[in-house]
């Protein structure tokens, strides 16, 4: 039997495991609010939300992959290829819908390639997706030689609106982000698809023995990852007003960080849409807050790296401790 003393300790660990990441985020938030004068203002918070919107969208796609126990290393490098595809089509047609579709096709192709290699053929996800990402680097550099493509002056308003527009005081990317968070939360929590993805992430073998088509569902997660990357890249390019082959490279580490924070969020080891949202918020808040404190830019990389290590460590440590008690 569990004695009352142990029971108390158990609850405490359970609480930390469940809300530790959120509490950490809150502490950092309060710290920045006190330390930096301009941090806790409506204006800065809106900027912060707009900054995080693209990362959140990428991370949502990555959430599908990680929920199924997979990994996608192609995101950061492939973003640039989508940026320039969107830019090139926009410059030549000045049609937002066409450009967006072109970006989507690149994203889908990326997802299909990753899905075929990893889910269907069965290559290790780290290596295969990393290699695919490397190929996209080659393609985008061959096309652009690393030069950005600038939007023409009379560019379609829709192409600007998706990254820079506002509805009332709320930036449009923030609204798009919220819609997508809700959509992903719905898919993951409320549909057969989501349940099966989590089942595969929980135990691939048992899922197969339970009659789930593991290959098919893993394939779908990579497809989602590609589609969400395409949306995020379009938002990014629209925001920058130019198609940058190198923009979006930070997506990789930041998305890993956000989704890892997400897995530690509710103490079940499964990444959820809401968790990913909070995770992306924490990551962007660090960038934003450190900038406000005039701390050198490169220091942000060190901080982000440390946060990833800390979050993984927390989940492993608390998980291990929980199992022993």
């Amino acid at each position, binding site marked *: 039997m569990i004695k009352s003393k142990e029971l108390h300790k158990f609850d405490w660990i359970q609480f930390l495991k469940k809300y530790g990441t959120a509490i950490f985020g809150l502490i950092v938030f309060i710290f920045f609010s006190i330390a930096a004068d301009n941090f806790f203002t409506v204006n800065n918070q809106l900027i912060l939300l707009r900054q995080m919107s693209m990362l959140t969208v990428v991370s949502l796609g990555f959430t599908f992959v990680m929920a199924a126990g997979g990994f996608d290393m192609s995101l950061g490098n492939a973003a640039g290829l989508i940026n320039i595809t969107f830019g090139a089509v926009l410059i030549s047609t000045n049609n937002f819908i066409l450009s967006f579709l072109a970006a989507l096709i690149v994203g889908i192709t990326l997802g299909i390639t990753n899905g075929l290699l990893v889910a269907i053929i069965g290559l290790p996800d780290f290596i295969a997706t990393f290699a695919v990402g490397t190929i996209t680097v080659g393609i985008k550099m061959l096309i652009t030689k690393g030069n950005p493509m600038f939007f023409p002056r009379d560019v379609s308003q829709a192409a600007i609106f998706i990254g820079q527009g506002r509805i009332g005081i709320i930036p449009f990317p923030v609204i798009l982000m919220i819609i997508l968070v809700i959509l992903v939360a719905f898919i993951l929590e409320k549909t*057969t698809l989501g*349940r099966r993805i*989590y*089942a595969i992430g*929980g135990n691939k073998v048992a899922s197969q*023995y*339970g009659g789930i088509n593991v290959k098919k569902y893993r394939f779908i997660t990579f497809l989602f990852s590609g589609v969400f990357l395409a949306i995020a890249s379009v938002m990014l390019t629209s925001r920058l007003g130019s198609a940058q082959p190198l923009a979006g490279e930070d997506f990789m580490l930041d998305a890993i960080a956000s989704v890892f924070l997400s897995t530690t969020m509710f103490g079940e080891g499964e990444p959820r849409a809401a968790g990913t949202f909070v995770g992306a918020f924490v990551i962007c808040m660090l960038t934003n807050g450190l900038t406000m404190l005039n701390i050198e830019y490169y220091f942000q990389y060190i901080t982000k790296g440390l946060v990833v290590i800390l979050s993984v460590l927390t989940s492993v440590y608390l998980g291990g401790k929980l199992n022993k008690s």
Partner: protein
Amino acid sequence: MVYIKQNVIEVKNIGKEFNGVWVLKDIDFDLKPGEIHALVGENGAGKSTFIKILSGVYSQSSGDIYLNGKPIKFSSVKHSESSGIRTVHQEINLVPYFKVYENIFIGSELEKSVAGIKIIDSREMKKRAIEVINRLGVELDVNHITAGINTAMKKIVEICKVLVYNPEIVIFDEPTTALGQEERKSLLNIIKLLKEQGISIIYVSHNLEEIKEIADRVTVFRDGEKVALLQDDEITIDNIICNMLGNKTYNSYTRQNSYIQEEEVLKLEGVTTDLLKNINFCLKKGEILGIAGVVGAGKTEIAKAIFGLDKIKAGSIEVKGKKTTPTPENAIKNKIALVPEERQLQGIISSFPVSKNVTLTYLEKWTKKGILNTSNEFKSTLNYIDRLSIKTQGPEQLVKYLSGGNQQKVVLSRWLVGDFEIGVFDEPTKGIDIKAKEDIYALMDKLSKQGKSIIIMSSYLPELISNCDNIIVMKEGEIVGEFNTRQENLEEKICKVMLGGHKDDKEQRIA
């Protein structure tokens, strides 16, 4: 000239306890220099635990071990190994793309000093490897890539790996599994050769023919106790089986009914996979069919073949007279349920609560246009918790916190949901308590009464005898016997087929 040497190992009153349960009780055992001492017993009789104590994996809870007359308590595998005890394990663990001699010296690489830097001494390793191989009287090129040699030769490499340490005592754990008739014979000869070279051997095997052939003495285990020590003429297959089984008390549960009908629901014809050879049998409506065999005999492989998890190389599977391509999806369409052997690995999703585990396979039943109805999921789960008396705090409790028996019931209810017609239950009562076992037996009886057919794989014979209509006996991937359970001395008869003899003798044994 006869002189008496002391025993290399003497074990007195050894016992082993896990969480208050004594799995090994009061074992006396001795090993004379240069003898082959065989250990036999049914699965779970305590052989493995005993060997694990000698090889330092476990330390004993009571009793003493004397090595060459000196008391010793092994604190680790290293300790046991450095004391001169080595084990040739059942599984082959070799690096496929290493050369034979590199595998032989894995972990014990020889080094030489060149200009003060230690480098691997391949020449010396090859020389020593050739010496060891010659000792065994086999021909094997030490430069051969390991992946390219056959299973028997791989086994010999495993033996060489052990021999380079010049051990005094070698434990062989089921060394001949997965070997053919001829290879088996030559391996036995090699073991005899080692004995002549003065190595003392502990030999564990399910194959009683082999034991009869090479053992000087046989210790029989039953239910964690040593029940007999046989030597010379006492070593006969009948005598060993008699001692292994004893006057065993059967389960308190024995099925009284039989609901077997004429209709054939499942038929395997000449099914051959990597591990199965020409499997033929049919399952009738309402039948409970047992599949017996020792670990590794191919029971699980039958389950995998039916469910489409292993590739079928030849033969066909018919469900209700229709040929089917076995895949998990088709199996489910054909209303076949699979309760796998490895509950943790293949059964439950441990990060999921009870409810999500129950609804996993037939999730569509709780969805409308792909959208889940979680409150219905909860209600249905409550219903199954009640029907199978699953002990849990509720549908939302994580399944990993349930006991093994209750986890098994969760996996069962996953399939009950779909109203299956053919249930394939692989070791469904493995590692679960008596109450849960009896619940599962009662459930199987009820299901067969409803006209469902069940195949149950088990290495525990009394379980099959008291639950099944018919029993198929597997050995080395083949069916070696079929029995109706309404006959006397069935366990002894099955044991003879299951443990004794080679597949060549098959016909006469079935007759």
